[in-house]
Each structure stands twice: as structure tokens, then as C-alpha cells.
């Protein structure tokens, strides 16, 4: 029994190699059929070769296993890799079923957390900051975002070894803290959206209808209720629009484009 188990122990050099490959190669092979399958194999192939030995039937078997469908957040993928390698290093090919079910079981949750944090919240918070500064011609916000992204890369680099040490227990330990962090970050996100609606949608009513001899300044009247009511209304309208069946973000963008061209063209609304 013990003979079949691999004797290779991963070194710091291995971890660095996996991280390098993860940062620069993980998603290059992304395809519709099995998404990040080849990327996952690529990040750990040198280590698999060391664990099982070149041209062994075990290696071939595990390479096939890792070529199966895989898709998760590219900010968290090395957590799964770390847990995976800890298992394969100890159990070798006998750990195949464990590894397979672990990969399938974890990729969904990590995709969801990763997308909500790194594809939605971070771009909202830093993108909003960068954009509101860039709007005035100031590049500082964009540079702050780059710095933040480099810090995130450090975090991506560190998590592999962490996950390798802690194994599956890491996921259960981390879930509470991650959920709390995500929830708090959404508070900032929602707050920032409110702030952006008030500053970045630069349109106003230009229409001044004449009632008898009195001209009615709609924008001025609205300002007395609350400033920026029109931007808020537009956002509310699109929010409602997006709730409709078959509506996509691209369609919504095109609808707003056409509506604004028409209303702006006949002079009902204007740019501030």
C-alpha cells in the first residue's frame, strides 16, 4: 500500500511556480466547452509530474481528471489548488475521488464569492473613485486603483500556501469572515452608488413650457423639491427596466441611448 503513495514534498519553489502560472496563465485557455480546465492543469502540471513521475499511468489519469470542466473565480482558484495538492501529495491517485468532488464542490461557492467581491464590489468602489476623479481630468484615482490591484495580487499569491496548510477546514473557517466582509463592502458599494447618482448623471430638464404668458421652469421647480431628481428618476427607470423579462444590460444601454438621443434632440432634456 505505502509503495503506491508518492514521496514528493512540495517546496517553496513549487509554490512560487504555481503562483506564477496562476497569475499569468490560468485563464488563457478559457473556452466555452470546459472553461478553465486547461488552465487548472497548466498551473499544477510540473508538480503533478513530480508527484507521480513522468509517463506513469497515474499521471495520465490525473491529467485527464484535471482536464474536466472547471470554472471559478480567478482570484480564489489557488485556494482550491492548495487544498487539492495537499490531498494528492499525501494520498496520490487514491485521493482522486476526494480531489474531484472537492473541486466540483468548491468551485461554485468560490465563483460566487469571488465574483461579488472582485468583479462587482472592488470595481464599484475603486472604479467609482477613479471615474469621478478622471471626469475632471485627474488621473490620481486611476492610479490608486492600480495600486489596490497590485495589493490584491499579493493576497492572491499568499493564499495558495495558506490553503495548502489548512486544507478543507480553511473554507469553513473563512466563510463567516468573508460573508461579513462582503456584506460590509456592499454597504460601501450601495452608499457610493447613491453618491454617484447625485454627481455623475449630468442631465437636466431644458424644456420651459409657456402657459399663457407665464413660462414654467421645470428644472428650477424640481430643484426646490430635491436637487438631482431627474438623475435619480432615470436610474430608477433603468432599474425597473432591468427587472423585465429578457432584458440584458446591453439592451438597456441601447434603449437609454435611443431615448436620450430623441429627448435630447427635441430639447426636452439637456446636458448640464
Amino acid at each position, binding site marked *: 500500500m505505502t509503495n503506491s503513495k508518492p514521496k514528493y514534498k512540495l517546496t517553496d519553489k513549487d509554490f512560487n511556480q504555481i503562483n506564477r502560472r496562476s497569475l499569468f496563465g*490560468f485563464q488563457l485557455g478559457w473556452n466555452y466547452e470546459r472553461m478553465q480546465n486547461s488552465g487548472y492543469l497548466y498551473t499544477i502540471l510540473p508538480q503533478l509530474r513530480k508527484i507521480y513521475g513522468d509517463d506513469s499511468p497515474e499521471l495520465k489519469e490525473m491529467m485527464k481528471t484535471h482536464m474536466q470542466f472547471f470554472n471559478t473565480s480567478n482570484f480564489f482558484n489557488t485556494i482550491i489548488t492548495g487544498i487539492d495538492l495537499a490531498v494528492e501529495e499525501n494520498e496520490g491517485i487514491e485521493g482522486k475521488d476526494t480531489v474531484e468532488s472537492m473541486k466540483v464542490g468548491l468551485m461554485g461557492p468560490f465563483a460566487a464569492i469571488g465574483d461579488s467581491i472582485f468583479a462587482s464590489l472592488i470595481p464599484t468602489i475603486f472604479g467609482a473613485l477613479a471615474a469621478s476623479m478622471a471626469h475632471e481630468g485627474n488621473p490620481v484615482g486611476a492610479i490608486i486603483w492600480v495600486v489596490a490591484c497590485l495589493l490584491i495580487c499579493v493576497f492572491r499569491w499568499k493564499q495558495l500556501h495558506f490553503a495548502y496548510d489548512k486544507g478543507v477546514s480553511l473554507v469553513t473557517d473563512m466563510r463567516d469572515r468573508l460573508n461579513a466582509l462582503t456584506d460590509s463592502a456592499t454597504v460601501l458599494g450601495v452608499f457610493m452608488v447613491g453618491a454617484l447618482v447625485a454627481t455623475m448623471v449630468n442631465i437636466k430638464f431644458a424644456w420651459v413650457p409657456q402657459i399663457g404668458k407665464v413660462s414654467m421652469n421645470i428644472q428650477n421647480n424640481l430643484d426646490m423639491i430635491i436637487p438631482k431628481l431627474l438623475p435619480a428618476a432615470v436610474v430608477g427607470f433603468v432599474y425597473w427596466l432591468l427587472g423585465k423579462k429578457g432584458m440584458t444590460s446591453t439592451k438597456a*444601454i441601447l434603449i437609454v441611448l435611443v431615448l436620450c438621443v430623441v429627448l435630447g434632440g427635441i430639447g426636452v432634456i439637456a446636458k448640464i
Partner: protein
Amino acid sequence: MIAWWQILLLTLYAGLEILDELQIYSSLNTPVGAGLIAGLIMGDLPTGLFIGASMQLMVLGVGTFGGASRIDATTGTVLATAFSTTVKGMSPQAAISSIAVPVAAIMVELDVLARFANTYFSHRIDHLIEQDKINYKAVERNVLYGAIPWSLSRAIPVFIALAFGQGLVQTIANALNGDLLWLGQGLTVAGAALPAVGFAILLRYLPVKKHVAYLILGFTITTLFSVLFTSIQSLGAGVAAVNKNFTAIFNGLPMLAIAMIGFALAILHYKNIPIGKPAGKNAEDQSEKISSSADNDEGEITDDEL
């Protein structure tokens, strides 16, 4: 006119930005980053940043969820910046709605094409693994080849548009300032309104119902301050025009300060979430922990409920 080296640099950027997005994600691949870089290349940083900022806000909520293709605002920004800075009569706002948005929408199709093309390399790897003697280097090469369809899917359209599109864009610009002036006006308004779509998409993804108080706070605080700051600015400008001794400078509303208020609220929120307490634990041991803790501090729970 766009110089040949500018076309070359912008094409190179278009080919690299998508790889950046897939790999380290430095944020230079985002519309605002594209505006920064295209602005620098074109020698007009404010215009690039303005277009990039507007496109960034428009796609704020459009992340790549589950690997779905999304509107390619980055490529749109590159082309709009290049044409807005070189074509006469093409204002940044008009460039956003007449160039950046249509380009961004069309580019979705090319993104799909790149993702399909990579299926071919995935199959080649399958084939290589089936061999008796596996060529490991070839397996790795076929993963890295995936960069080619990705890169070309952006670089080729940008190159073609920049190299051959200038005459067409000039014709459009002339029309928008001539016979179709109303359309030009409308496009400008649309350029200013499009960020609203980004905010609405984002609100669809965020738990708005749960955090609606913070949405109202963010909107109201910022509205009041922005009106205050703008009014003071125009007052200052008015006084300065009358009195030459008046030299005080009033800046616009600093968004970082507004963000700090939001950050403080987020910290308060985080501190109020119990971590490691029974309520936050995962499902498996939740039930037993709750039952045990209910025995221990029964009095406290009834206190809370009162």
C-alpha cells in the same frame, strides 16, 4: 490625423489589455485605465480620462459573471478617445454615444468568437494526453496558445478601425454638426446620461432592499454637498470677475471625502456583524450549537426579544 505610431501603440494596448484582465488584473484593462493610456498616447489626457470615466460608470455593474461575455467598454473607450482627439467637431460626449457604445456592443461578438476558438486548443490537449508518451511541453504550449485568439479578437478590430475608419468618422462628425445637428445634440445628452445605466445594473446585483438606507444617505448627502460646492464655486467666479483682489480658489466636491463617509458606515456595519457566534456558523453544526447556546444563555435571549 492619427499618426502611424499611435495606431501601433493603441493596437498593442488593445491586444494586451484583455490578457491583463485575464491574468493579473492591474485595472489598466478597465475603461478608465484605457482612457488614461489612450489619452497619453493621443496627447490629450483630459479627453481620454473623461471618456474612460463615462464608460467606466456605464459598465460599473457589468462584471463577468460565470464567464459570460459582456459589453467591451475598454475597446470602445480606446476608439472613442482616438477619434475624439483627432476628428474635428467630435466632442467627447458625442464620441461616447456615437462611437464608444456601438463599438462596445459589437465587440461582444468577437469575445464570443475568442472563447470558441480556445475550445480547439482544449481538444488538442485532450489528444496529447491520450498519447503513450505525453509531450508535456506541448500540453503547456497549447494552454498558452489561448492568448492568441484573446489578443487578436481585440487588436485586429482596433487596428482596422483606426487605420481605415478616420474618413468615415469625419463624415459622421460633419453630419452631426451640420444637417443632423439635433442628432448630435441628442448624442451628447445620451453621453451624459449613460452612467445612469451602470448604476441601475449595479443596484440589481447589490442587496438594495437590505441596505436601502445607505443608498438614500449616499444620494442625499452628496446631492446637498454638490449643490453647495457648485454654488460656492460659481459665487467665487462671480466675485472674482468683479473684484480683482479676490483670489480665493474654491474646488469642486472631493469624492474621496464622500467615499470616506461610506467607508466609516461600512466599518460600523462590520463591527455589528457577529463572527464566530452560533448565528454565523455554517449549516452543519448550526442546529446543535444553537440548541446548546439556547440552554446556556436563555435569559439573555428573552431579554433581547423584549
